[in-house]
């Protein structure tokens, strides 16, 4: 057996080959290609990198991307919690089907979501027509981006909160009630602290997904530079202009944010797990 194996389960075969293949495949598909982006940026030096990522157009795209992502994740935190609550706690007709359909944004290709949302939130669309008379445009404005990002982030909060809510001991609530708490107090002081870590994790997952999202947004966004141009689109624009260095610099800035988010999410999940086990 390999020196890596500490011997606990070493009677089973295949450690070297399975770990070897895993590392090889991981390296070839993920790590080496990702490192290409960093190596390319390294060549431009700090000043060159900063010059690209600090231009007004790029900064405007950051503000738009992170701002709408944050708002979408917040909307999802509130409504995702509500949906999870309703699905776990109440029994109503069609509950199981709705439960299954919550995952639709995971399964539906983003391009399909993009054109469908555009069609219904456009000024003459099924929903957009109700807002048009009041001068509110949804599609082709930052508001449209918010709609798309809310759509794709929806399952994250529901699916992280739901299992915790299901496992929540009924006795805790009964104890709170027996001590004289009303439902709202019980929710605030007993239920919310218990599902808090899961809720924050779901929020972070939805946010991370929204920041990188491309397919569903570009159809509904309008893509006007400085106004409704998200960062991933800007990368593509640079690529189409054969500005590989510029595209890569922006990509690296986003990768750094993504990896930081991944780290935070890992820590959050560790925290949530500990809380649940305690």
């Amino acid at each position, binding site marked *: 057996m390999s020196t890596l194996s500490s011997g606990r389960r070493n009677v089973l075969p295949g*450690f070297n080959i399975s770990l070897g293949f*895993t590392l090889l495949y991981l390296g070839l598909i993920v*790590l080496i*290609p990702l490192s*290409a982006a960093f190596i390319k940026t390294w060549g431009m030096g700090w000043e060159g990198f900063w010059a690209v990522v600090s231009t007004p157009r790029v900064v405007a795209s950051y503000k738009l991307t992170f701002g709408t992502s944050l708002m979408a994740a917040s909307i999802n935190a509130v409504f995702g919690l509500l949906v999870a609550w309703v699905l776990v706690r109440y029994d109503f007709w069609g509950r199981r089907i709705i439960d299954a359909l919550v995952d*639709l944004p995971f399964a539906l*290709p*983003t391009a399909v979501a993009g054109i469908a949302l555009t*069609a219904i939130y456009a000024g003459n669309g099924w929903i957009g027509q109700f807002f048009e008379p009041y001068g509110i445009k949804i599609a082709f404005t930052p508001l449209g981006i918010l709609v798309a990002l809310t759509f794709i982030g*929806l399952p994250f909060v529901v699916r992280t909160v739901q299992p915790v809510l299901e496992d929540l001991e009924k006795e805790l609530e009964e104890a709170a009630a027996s001590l004289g708490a009303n439902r709202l107090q019980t929710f605030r002081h007993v239920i919310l602290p218990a599902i808090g870590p899961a809720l924050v994790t779901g929020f972070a997952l939805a946010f991370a997904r929204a920041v990188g999202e491309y397919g569903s947004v570009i159809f509904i966004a309008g893509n006007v530079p400085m106004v409704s141009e998200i960062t991933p689109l800007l990368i593509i624009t640079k690529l189409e202009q054969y500005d590989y260095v510029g595209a890569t610099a922006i990509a690296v800035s986003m990768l750094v944010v993504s990896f930081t988010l991944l780290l935070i999410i890992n820590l959050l999940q560790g925290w949530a797990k500990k809380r649940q086990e305690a």
Partner: protein
Amino acid sequence: MSTTLSIHNTPAAKAPSSTTEPWLVRALLIGIALAFLTLFLFVPLVAVFFEALKKGFGPYWAALAEPDAISAIKLTLITAAIAVPLNLVFGVSAAWAIAKFQFRGKQFLITLIDLPFSVSPVIAGLIYVLIFGAQGWFGSYLSDNDIKIIFAVPGIVLATIFVTFPFVARELIPLMEAQGSDEEEAARVLGANGFQIFWKVTLPNIKWGLLYGVILCNARAMGEFGAVSVVSGHIRGLTNTLPLHVEILYNEYAFTAAFATASLLALLALVTLGLKSLVEWRTHKRINEELPPENPQP
């Protein structure tokens, strides 16, 4: 979609329960949740099929029977047929190493496997352009030997593998860790070789989790847009997958055709959700079977 609802267990004259809300509050919460889901989920889904069939079945079929559409379907199927099995083999192999053995850096390896999920699809495409593109690391070598990866099928497959990379592995790792190695060890003591252990003991125990991962992996592989868009070059009839075909039609204002193609993908999504629910139901049932009421009768 209908949002009519009826609430069971309506307390009539009983004392209010201490662990649920009054009838009115419940109805209100269900109402708000359903309204939200309707606005963001159900209406878009219905809209896809409505727009696709708005002009009747004739134009619908015509849009799907078009040569470019057929070739997009083919390319999508080919891409998934390569990407899914590769990630399946990877997922099983990674889960075997991680769940059955102890080694240092295991947690870090799990994080690395999850990495593609946190990378924007656009960047996933970009990194392959940096390596295989005309100005990339192997650009001159590839063009000298007349090998095309970027703006060709291999690039599309690679980008798809990247974005679907973690699906099977992340499904199997927690499952196999939870199941432990007792049964494999028992098989070993009884004389089974590695191949027999895997086929006769491990695989039957993980088959539903495996299927679950494959279903999700396949849905994403067939539906990926951003990453594929960067490396495809949008050559009609050659390097367009179904999602890219939707985009081209849409940008040409061929809305009915765009939605007709999109409806295929929406159907795929619904089938995915159906299968997923089925597997969840199966495994849930199995979990319940694992824990029978203990009534020892030796």
